């Protein structure tokens, strides 16, 4: 079955730098990947979706890439700010499910220091 793997170690960077988070999937290439932000004690908040046939997607300071050869998606935050500190979750639908079931990675916690 499909698994989503994210680096469970926290990522600490200095304000203004670019944060890069990695998401790897283990099985078939999903039709799309989604990235969410989760703050402590809160629900995930949708950020970006990238489709299998898209190499890159941008939204303001966020950029997501999708490499089907490496089975990997990278999530970049440029000009990072302390307010970007949160846990970032990678997710996709499970198999050929048409029911909208999402599977999530463990999430990577980003800490941006001023």
């Amino acid at each position: 079955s499909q698994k989503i793997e994210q680096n469970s170690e926290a990522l600490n960077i200095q304000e203004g730098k670019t944060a890069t988070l990695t998401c790897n999937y283990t099985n078939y290439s999903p039709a799309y990947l989604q990235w969410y932000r989760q703050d402590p004690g809160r629900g995930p908040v949708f950020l970006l979706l990238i489709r299998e046939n898209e190499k890159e997607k941008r939204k303001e300071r966020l950029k997501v890439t999708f490499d089907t050869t490496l089975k990997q998606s990278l999530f970049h935050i440029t000009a990072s700010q302390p307010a970007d500190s949160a846990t970032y979750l990678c997710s996709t639908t499970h198999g050929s499910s048409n029911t909208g079931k999402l599977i999530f990675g463990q999430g990577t916690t980003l800490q941006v220091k001023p």
Partner: protein
Amino acid sequence: EPEVTQTPSHQVTQMGQEVILRCVPISNHLYFYWYRQILGQKVEFLVSFYNNEISEKSEIFDDQFSVERPDGSNFTLKIRSTKLEDSAMYFCASSESSRTGVHGYTFGSGTRLTVV
């Protein structure tokens, strides 16, 4: 911006008791979901609901759990005979379609269930 509303935000219950977690999805959304997150662990799928019936459920969603859409706005998760291991954050989510498009899923802020 439309929100998914969950109540209560925190529920403490005695082991063996029944709890009902409530959700008001976004009004024009057709697909509804429950997920849970045990402290420090992944967000896990429990159940999806469409057209007034369960469309998919996980292994976690056994006979102890049930969902209902009693009226046009509420979506509830009932947990019967709660166990200590049911303690978790429970998130309700909704989406326009099962294929999300560009909008992803909208999650509520969650109900923290503590079973003592």
